């Protein structure tokens, strides 16, 4: 998937583009073509997921995505693939401890995980120190890639710049004469919070939007009343933020109590988990999110993911796969294609494969820069929107069964 808005071209020289890319495009649907990784013995993956703590509402979905992906890897590779997963309790310290324990007890070839920039960077620091290839999704923060000298960390996931561009694309779906222009950004006081706010402010300002409010709040804060009052006072029409899931849910309740409904609401991460709908119901409708993968996307194994999930966990009529499943499954697809390209489980071979392969996964087609960032312009960050209990792709405009037209403007909370 290429973002035509940027016009950036892909890496020119790709040693193994054909093999790995084709595997992704065909949905990994056949093991004969790329069956052998060349390695022998077991490929062991260590991972942590947040099954408890502030990100726990997504932990199970991430685990399911990994496990479905590992099952697919076992189908596709000649060697056995096993994954050792521990709960990291949504704590960076626990990520490090868990990874220490996993790698002490197992001969780990690769590390995955966890969720959110806070936890992924903790895992990445461990992997960099140990010289183990690391794949981290749900990690939009670009700063560490640029500043930490990453050698082993690769992030198959849209980054802050992609989220900002996707937001612009979403807004451009609204007819120009109806399009709102007053943007408010609630910025969590974290590195990624500042980076994402910068990306939104510069991208949308350049596109002619009026950023009328940019205010910080403490991550973990439960009182959004001041921000809400400030947004009302500034007549913010497009509200953008990236709070934690509990914070996002609380803020919606407080917006309702303060009789404030923006016309467009995009909450990156907060609106990702299914807990959003179970906590808010119809109050959660219309909220947009940018979780890396959204039901409605097509190609690159999406059909296989759909059928594997349905067969393993079941889906009721109209029910959609949680977004975090797709983001995690995409990690496994990258690992599979890298393993095939590396033809060895040697860390150096993985490193070369990660740097030189074009990957085709459920989130799109992309290559990595040497610092582990997806090459600029290659990944479109799909924007999803909550509607009738499901997260549907609304941007880009795709033909997937679960995709739908962007619903705008939001119906005021009090009228739902």
């Amino acid at each position, binding site marked *: 998937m290429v973002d035509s808005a940027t016009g950036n071209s892909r890496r020119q020289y790709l040693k193994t583009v054909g093999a790995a890319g084709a595997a992704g495009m065909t949905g990994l649907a056949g093991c004969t073509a790329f069956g052998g990784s060349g390695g022998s013995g077991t490929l062991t993956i260590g991972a942590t997921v947040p099954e*408890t*703590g*502030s990100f*726990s*509402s997504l932990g199970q979905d991430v685990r399911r995505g990994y496990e479905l992906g590992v099952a697919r890897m076992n189908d596709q590779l000649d060697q056995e693939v096993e994954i050792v997963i521990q709960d990291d*309790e*949504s704590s960076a310290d626990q990520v490090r401890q868990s990874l220490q324990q996993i790698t002490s007890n197992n001969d780990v070839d690769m590390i995955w995980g966890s969720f959110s920039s806070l936890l992924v960077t903790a895992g990445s620091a461990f992997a960099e120190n140990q010289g183990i290839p690391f794949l981290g999704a749900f990690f939009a923060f670009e700063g560490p890639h640029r500043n930490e000298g990453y050698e082993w960390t690769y992030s198959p996931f849209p980054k802050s710049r992609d989220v900002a561009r996707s937001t612009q694309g979403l807004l451009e779906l609204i007819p120009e004469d109806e399009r709102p222009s007053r943007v408010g950004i609630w910025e969590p*006081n974290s590195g990624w919070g500042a980076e994402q706010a910068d990306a939104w402010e510069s991208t949308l300002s350049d596109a002619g939007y009026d950023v009328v409010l940019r*205010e*910080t*709040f*403490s991550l*973990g*804060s*439960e*009182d959004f*009343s*001041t*921000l809400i*009052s*400030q947004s009302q*006072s500034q007549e913010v029409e497009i509200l953008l933020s990236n709070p934690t*899931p*509990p914070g996002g*849910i*609380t803020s919606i*309740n*407080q917006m*309702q*109590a*303060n*009789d404030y409904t923006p016309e467009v609401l995009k909450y990156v991460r907060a609106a990702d988990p299914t*807990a959003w709908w179970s*906590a808010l119901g119809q*109050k959660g409708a219309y909220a947009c999110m940018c979780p890396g993968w959204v039901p409605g996307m097509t190609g690159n194994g999406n059909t296989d993911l759909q059928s594997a999930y349905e067969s393993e966990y079941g889906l009721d009529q109209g029910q959609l796969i949680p977004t975090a499943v797709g983001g995690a499954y995409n990690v496994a697809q990258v690992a599979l294609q890298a393993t095939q390209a590396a033809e060895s489980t040697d860390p150096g071979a993985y490193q070369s494969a990660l740097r030189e392969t074009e990957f085709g996964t459920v989130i799109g087609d992309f290559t990595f820069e040497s610092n582990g960032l997806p090459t600029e312009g290659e990944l479109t960050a799909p924007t999803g929107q909550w509607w009738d209990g499901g997260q549907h792709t609304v941007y880009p405009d795709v033909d997937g069964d679960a995709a739908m037209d962007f619903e705008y403007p939001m119906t005021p*909370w*009090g009228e739902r």
Partner: protein
Amino acid sequence: MPPTELVLQILVNGLLLGGIYAVAALGLSLVFGIMDIVNLAHGHMLMLGAYVAILLFAAAGITPLIGMFVAMALLFVLGMAIQVLVLDRVVDEGIEQPIIVLFGLALVLQSLGRIVLGSDARSAEVGISGQSLEIGPVLFSFPRTVTFVVSVALILATWAFLRYTTTGRAIRATAQNRDAARYMGIDTDRIYVITLGIGTALAGAAGALLSMLFPITPFVGWSYLLKAFAVVVLGGVGSIAGTLVGGLVLGVSENLGTLYLGGGFRDIISFTIFLLVLVVRPQGLFGTGGGDGE
């Protein structure tokens, strides 16, 4: 310069939030003032009260305003049991032992909460959750206003209890001089049991009220303990009026500070006030140093 309407709105939001802080701190202040014990498990007891209200609401649709009384009753018994079974054994062994015991209790409650209830954030969203009252240019969030009114009522009821009942007078006498109270025939051991029971019950009430406003997880105990501690230091240990004023000052300072300095300064503002009071007026705004419960 922010418009006047915005400042007024944020002032009102701060006052309403301050009332909630005050009731969250009330039980801590009472126990601290009367028993000279910093109840490090206070925030976790508040968390338990919140869960009682949330579970009652989820299971039977009972509003936390009613569930609050169930939470108070259960936590009153829990508080008395803790005093009888644990604290009575260490209360005469200096200030460290009870603190260590209560710290351990806090960890146990947090871990139990995580195992039994899971760590997903929950709240009790009642019918009033999305409603508000508009007076002039200012909007009064209904759940916050109701919580504020109930909080002030609880504070007044606690004050009246200590002021006008025999048990309340015995509690105040024990706070002033435990040995003298004992010589006057007051069963001070029983008074301690009742005091911790009341302090714990008030934590339960605060938790039930908070469950209508904020998400609750087994991990919220420490943050509420810190806020409550700041309120107690600000208002004065053991002072009921001081607790209310301390809560209001903290709520307003946080909200106005957020408006003028930015949300990243919210906790810095709380704890700067806390430190300033400790340095300039360690007994707090209303404290006499004696902790007489008034």
